[in-house]
């Protein structure tokens, strides 16, 4: 299965948020989407999940157009997502949060569902102990995990994650790396992830795309981060670049 974004554009009165961007992601692949603030990453994700209509271009899964069909049909079609600002159903319990998506999957994606159950998802994402707690009572990191578990309950073919590590301490980000790797093993779905945590991105992604001012400026293996001077200039800045070049163990390196 292949999700393909072809020459997609989006304008908001006066601002071209996304300008003729193309990318693709295959089943089982983890693709990173990075770029400066306001580059259009979230906007692109919004278009893939049909929260925004595309102004031009098309988005397809195996040739089947999936843009401008509304978020619900996108979800049924196998694309699940999380949000940059966590959007859980605050007054529902963790189990019910996941059940919302699971109900959809049971009705519309039964074949993809396989052995997925709500209980298993909660186990996998370490939220089983909170199963009957309201989402609003959880700490930030836990909320993030519930949101991912909810997205996975759709048994998606493609999972879109918008800054999953924001607000997590480093240890938690490391755990997340493992968990995301596991998603792929487990369901074989493709993952597109936006994040600003470079060690996270470089450890999970096979390929990355770099956006700037709405346009794609680079793509390739994570090493483009280091190797492409343009990326370094618009996105990394001196220090981060130096750190990347020197190795990944941030803490020890910068303590010298």
């Amino acid at each position, binding site marked *: 299965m292949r999700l393909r974004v072809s020459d997609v554009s989006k304008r908001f009165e006066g601002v071209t948020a996304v300008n003729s961007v193309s990318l693709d992601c295959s089943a089982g692949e983890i693709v990173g989407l990075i770029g400066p603030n*306001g580059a259009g990453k979230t906007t692109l994700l919004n278009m893939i999940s049909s929260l925004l209509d595309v102004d031009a271009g098309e988005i397809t899964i195996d040739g089947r157009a999936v843009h401008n069909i509304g978020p619900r049909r996108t979800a049924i079609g196998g694309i699940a997502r999380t949000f940059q600002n966590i959007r859980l159903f605050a007054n529902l319990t963790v189990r019910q949060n996941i059940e919302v998506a699971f109900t959809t999957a049971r009705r519309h994606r039964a074949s993809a569902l396989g052995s997925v159950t709500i209980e298993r998802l909660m186990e996998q994402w370490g939220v089983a102990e909170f199963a009957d707690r309201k989402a609003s009572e959880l700490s930030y990191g836990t909320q993030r995990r519930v949101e991912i578990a909810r997205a996975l309950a759709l048994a998606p073919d493609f999972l879109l994650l918008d*800054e999953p590590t924001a607000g997590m301490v480093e*240890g938690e980000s490391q755990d997340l790396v493992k968990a995301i790797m596991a998603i792929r093993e487990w369901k074989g779905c493709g993952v597109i992830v936006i994040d600003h945590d470079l060690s996270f991105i470089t450890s999970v992604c096979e390929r990355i795309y770099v956006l700037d001012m709405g346009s794609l400026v680079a793509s390739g293996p994570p090493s483009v981060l280091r190797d492409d001077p343009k990326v370094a200039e618009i996105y*990394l800045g001196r220090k981060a670049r130096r750190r990347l070049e020197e190795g990944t163990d941030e*803490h020890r390196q910068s303590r010298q």
Partner: protein
Amino acid sequence: MLELESVSVDYGAVKAVQSVSLRVEEGEVVALLGPNGAGKTSLISAVMGIVPVSSGTIRFAGQDVTFASPEDKVRKGIGISPEGRRVFSNLTVAENLQLGASAQPDKAVRAEQLAKYLEMFPILKQRYRQKAGTLSGGEQQQLAISRCLMSRPRIVMLDEPSLGLAPVIVEKIFDLIAELKASGLTILLVEQNANEALSIADRAYLLHSGRLRFEGAAQDLFNSDDLMTHYMGVGGAQ
């Protein structure tokens, strides 16, 4: 300049901050570190007065401000860039900045500050008339930081200012902090990005489960592998 004496904060049964004493001297940068849920934001909110202090006292510039209203504190010279950015989503960037300057009576200062931050964060200039709610996450963060500096406070409290920012902007933020420090501004900095924070701070506090686990020179904390690994997960092992 800012002094907290055994301050506690409760949310019903949850004791978010337990008897924490902390001080920030004039011109200092103090880092406040701790894992998720440690109580950092609660502490800052208590200082601002938007969550009630259940015990303890807070002094600012020698005055007891434990029970002063947030607006009074801001007028006395405390600025805050809060967790979660909290930009006024239904106002434009320009209007957000204008409101940020409410506590600054001097028009000239306001104009000067505005020019300064628009130059520092050019994206704000480009999005000047756009509703803040439609800004990207990182743009909002830049706006939140600029907004709290508009009134030229005497002390600012920055709650995770680098959250959701691209590395290049993070760098800019830390450059800004350094610059503000050089200009004599007092800063209380809450950060997940411990290394950066400690490298710029004079002193540091480490908070965990609502209690202080360390206080002292920033460099000492930085060098304490134990503390950093144990509480901040830095270094990979947990």
